[in-house]
């Protein structure tokens, strides 16, 4: 390519950049924070799913325990009456969570689309195919290759590729911006209802675990109260149960899903703010920092919920 051709190409590229929007020139900048948003969202969604799936079990277990303590009959009708969510209601919630997961995954797919790179590679292949066609045709016709045509093929196909690449990058930018703007209201609302419900589910579990502490202590004290008839092994067993219940109680305090959902809410607001901003380097830096904070907080809650389920 001559110097003149290089200069013209540079001017065309600059014009395209200005016309299509400078931000379209670098959609790779927020791949990492969107990936982090996705990773942390997954933890929050899974935690919420665990609480929703667990909500009826807590009521069942509590009911059975109470009936044992009070020496009362257990009936399936009573168990059903105590349930907090019907199967259909659970299904509703799990569907909504599934849509939220898909939303986050699709954001990642778009942000990480390799379309711009594929276009560049394919444009190079196109250039080579045209050059080969020109060379073969000239050879067959028994005449020398058209030097000007040959010189132009490379730059022209590169330009075609770069225009298509810009179009793809702009498409990615627009798709992300649109998805975040359109998703803002339902995601915000979903996080609000999830926050309310997981908080309520957490309180029911807290009530149950708290009661279990008292039951464990009562069992120990009842055995101790037998005086000389106290069985040491049984006493030790009850003491171990007290310790186990208190361990669960301590772990449970850190497993409040509110923290994860609150941080996801903030991260989502940050994502929306970034999309609506001028996307300056500072805007991007703030966005990245917020995603990192979100990921860290979500992991802490996720770890606590996992530890609790393993106790």
């Amino acid at each position, binding site marked *: 390519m001559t110097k003149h051709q290089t200069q013209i190409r540079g001017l065309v590229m600059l014009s395209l950049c200005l016309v299509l929007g400078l931000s379209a020139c670098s959609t790779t900048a927020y791949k990492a924070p969107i990936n982090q948003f996705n990773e942390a969202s997954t933890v929050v969604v899974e935690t919420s799913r665990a609480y929703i799936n667990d909500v009826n079990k807590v*009521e069942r277990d509590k009911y059975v325990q*109470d009936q044992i303590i009070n020496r009362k009959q257990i009936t399936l009708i009573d168990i059903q009456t105590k349930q*907090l969510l019907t199967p259909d*209601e659970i299904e*509703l*919630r799990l569907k*909504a969570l599934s*849509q*939220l997961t*898909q*939303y986050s995954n*699709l954001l990642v*797919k*778009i942000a990480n*689309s390799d*379309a711009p790179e594929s*276009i560049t590679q*394919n*444009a190079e*292949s*196109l250039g080579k*195919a*045209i050059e*080969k*066609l020109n060379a*073969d*045709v000239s050879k*067959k*016709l028994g005449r020398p290759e058209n030097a000007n045509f040959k010189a132009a093929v490379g730059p022209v196909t590169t330009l*075609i590729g770069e225009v*298509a690449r810009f179009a*793809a990058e702009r*498409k*990615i930018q*627009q*798709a992300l911006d*649109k*998805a975040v703007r*359109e998703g803002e209201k*339902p*995601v915000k*609302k*979903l996080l609000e*209802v999830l926050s*309310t*419900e997981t*908080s*309520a*589910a957490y*309180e*029911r579990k*807290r*009530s149950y675990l*708290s*009661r279990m502490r*008292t039951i464990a*202590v009562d069992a120990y*004290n*009842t055995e101790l*109260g037998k005086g000389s008839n106290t069985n040491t092994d049984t006493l030790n067993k009850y003491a171990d149960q007290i310790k186990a219940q208190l361990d669960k109680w301590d772990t449970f305090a850190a497993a409040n899903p509110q923290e994860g959902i609150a941080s996801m809410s903030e991260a989502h607001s940050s994502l929306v703010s970034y999309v609506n901003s001028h996307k300056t380097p500072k805007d991007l830096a703030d966005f990245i920092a917020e995603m990192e904070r979100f990921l860290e907080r979500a992991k802490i809650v996720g770890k606590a919920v996992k530890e609790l389920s393993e106790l």
Partner: protein
Amino acid sequence: MTKSELVSLIGDILTEIDVVSGSLGQNLPSRKKLDELRGNLDEQQRKLVRLIFKENNSEYINITAELSKTNEEMRKSLNDLQRIVGSIKLLTKFVELVEDATLTASDLVA
């Protein structure tokens, strides 16, 4: 006070009652009274939570519909991106086919 706040407040009271109960002998009248109070409060909390869940059911239906629409738009965008990539691949394929056809034609002529 919201329902959620009331649920949380009852939760605080229940855990306090449990701590006190655990220090009282099971057969003491005061303990029995506390257990009864605990049972009633717990049931009130359960009913409140049930109400919260019930009231939110319609929200989930709306949210699922809206998110589903946004997700569909994103899938379309991903398809559009694939089409842009595909169109250049198609052009390359076309040029290769033209080359094959030209070579074959010239061989036949020869």
